[in-house]
């Protein structure tokens, strides 16, 4: 069976909205925030136009958005919400409830920087601050991936072996507002891949009473956290199955990581999200100049695919990691920290770029690759494309 696709031009927010529509969420609780607002608006349009049979709860905060979603989903329906930046930070407390109660919510997160300084624009600080909160995190490179990952995430999150919530991370503006060609599948194909929600864990139902999320004794707490860890241990295999089944139905191939021209690369740069596209573009340019470089895109940051990453970067003598968040007080930023840990003794150069909406331009990637190839590795993290007068930009008269 192959999907009947409609070729449309939509942006990442549009793709996220279509994904939730095709997944037939029954309850939507969304709060607008730049650059996620078009998702909140689009889902409201769908319900008003009758394109989506869902109740739209116009919540008064992101915190309530997540609470509503958890409550609704505990009754046995898919609940949809989406957020960004400080909205995700406001949700922090209850993200942990969704994870701990094993409620498999799938939520698009439009990546935007955190305060302070105020910024409306892209980086990964918001999602990175939630990396240990028990949610899976898939990072999309394109609007098509946003759409496809929503289906893959639902399949994985709702699997009895996993039962974990998932974030679909899409870069603010670079993906959320970038119009791109997307193949939109028909409902029947999505239905075949993604059957109606079946709750495998505890639920709210007067016909089968139970009290959920009450105080847990110390005697059981570690065990319940261990259960979550087991969910994450099993997630890579289930994700891979879901991706393989996705290929059969939709024809597009995904994996937890995506190596690009890595097989014979001397230097490999690890990336996350939309920047991966630009990195690939630069790899093509440098390859044309005879420089053996490659890109390793991490699709699944949580669970973190240690073994696949190890194998993919094995050919390269040097590895760099482009982080879009600062990782204060650590040796290097978050992704680099984990890549280092995964690779044992192998030299890994951490780079930081693209904060607060700064584009990670082809020139920035070229600089990173040149540094890796020149083998001038520094232990310290390298802040690329940062002005030299950083410490003197606000002079007091």
């Amino acid at each position, binding site marked *: 069976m192959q999907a009947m696709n409609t070729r449309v031009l939509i942006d990442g927010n549009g793709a996220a909205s279509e994904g939730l529509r095709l997944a037939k969420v029954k309850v939507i609780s969304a709060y607008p925030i730049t650059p996620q607002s078009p998702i909140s608006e689009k889902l409201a349009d769908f319900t008003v136009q009758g394109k989506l049979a869902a109740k739209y709860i116009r919540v008064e905060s992101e915190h309530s958005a997540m*609470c509503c979603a958890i409550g609704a989903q505990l009754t046995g329906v898919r609940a949809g919400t989406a957020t960004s930046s400080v909205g995700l930070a406001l949700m922090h407390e209850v993200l942990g409830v969704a994870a701990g109660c094993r409620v498999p919510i799938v939520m698009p997160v439009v990546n935007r920087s955190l305060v302070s300084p105020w910024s409306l624009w892209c980086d990964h600080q918001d999602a990175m601050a939630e990396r240990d909160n028990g949610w899976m995190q898939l990072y999309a490179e394109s609007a098509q991936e946003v759409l496809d990952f929503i289906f893959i995430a639902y399949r994985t999150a709702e699997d009895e072996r996993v039962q974990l919530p998932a974030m679909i991370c899409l870069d603010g503006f670079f993906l959320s507002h970038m119009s791109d060609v997307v193949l939109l599948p028909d409902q029947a194909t999505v239905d075949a891949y993604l059957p109606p929600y079946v709750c495998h864990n505890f639920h709210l139902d007067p016909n089968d009473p139970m009290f959920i999320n009450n105080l847990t004794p110390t005697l059981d707490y570690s065990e319940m956290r261990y259960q979550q860890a087991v969910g994450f241990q099993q997630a890579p295999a289930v994700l891979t199955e879901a991706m393989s089944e996705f290929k059969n139905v939709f024809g597009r191939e995904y994996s937890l990581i995506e190596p690009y021209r890595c097989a014979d690369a001397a230097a490999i740069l690890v990336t996350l999200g939309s920047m991966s596209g630009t990195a690939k573009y630069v790899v093509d340019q440098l390859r044309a100049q005879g420089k053996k470089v490659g890109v390793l895109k991490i699709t699944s940051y949580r669970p973190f695919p240690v073994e696949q990453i190890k194998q993919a970067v094995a050919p390269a003598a040097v590895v760099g990691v482009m982080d879009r968040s600062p990782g204060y007080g650590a040796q290097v930023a978050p992704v680099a920290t984990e890549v280092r840990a995964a690779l044992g003794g192998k030299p890994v150069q951490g780079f930081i770029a693209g904060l607060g909406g700064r584009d990670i331009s082809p020139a920035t990637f070229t600089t990173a690759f040149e540094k890796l190839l020149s083998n001038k590795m520094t232990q310290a993290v390298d802040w690329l494309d940062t002005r030299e007068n950083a410490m003197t930009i606000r002079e007091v008269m």
Partner: protein
Amino acid sequence: MLVMKSEARGLIAHGVSACAGCGLELAARIIFDVMGANSVVVIPPGCAALFSGYGRETVTKIPGFQGNLESTAAYAAGIKAGFEMQGRGDVQVFGLAGDGATVDIGLQSLSGALERRDKILYICYDNEAYMNTGIQGSGSTPLAAWTTTTPGGKGVYRKDMVGIVAAHKIPYAATASVGYVDDLRKKMEKAKAATATGPAYIHVHAPCPTGWGSKPEHTVEVAKMAVQSLCWPLYEIVNGVEYTVTVPVSKPKPVTEYLKLQKRFSGAAASQVEKLQAMVTGDYEQLLNR
């Protein structure tokens, strides 16, 4: 399926670890009884979490969810929506939250649910401080009351929570008291019926012997005295405008009659007591004129 390891004639077990003389426990039995078995309760942390249970054990026969302190109304709204979308809008969803979880940290999510007219019933049991964490002052702690965070007596007047709720013009809002259990039961029934069209809110005055320094056997008496001294008038508000005093007080007792039953007011200065008397008298007049 819930394994019944104890018997109980109502929806709550008879052995609940609430303090002896707990006003909340008395209120909760009436509340659950009126709501019935086709209900779901949302309880945030606080004294009512004793009804959620501990570990594998619970003391309620209806399904429940222990939410977070600030979002009882939001969880309830989501649960209600989930049932509505499955053609089960008949399932009653109610929140049972303390004063801290309502008038302080939970005000925002409650206001949101009221404004949206989500068909939920929200019950605030008001013991006038954060009792479960050890008697810290809340926005509902009355003027001159001692708590661990108002050691010299609270210097400001409490929030008019029911007034805030009424301003949302919801179908039904009421004050209630464990001193008047028949009144409480009637209001619960009206509130439950009102959720057919929108949100309903009940604010139950629930004395706490532990936090108030009152005698456990005086719980009902103290609650009655609060009403008779005008410190806690009993009334209901339909659609935010139709006010009815359900227990009129023609010959009010002086507030001192109420205060002297509780150690938390023992340090109150005469000037503060005068101020309190003037406030409650004025408020009651205003209420009668509505």
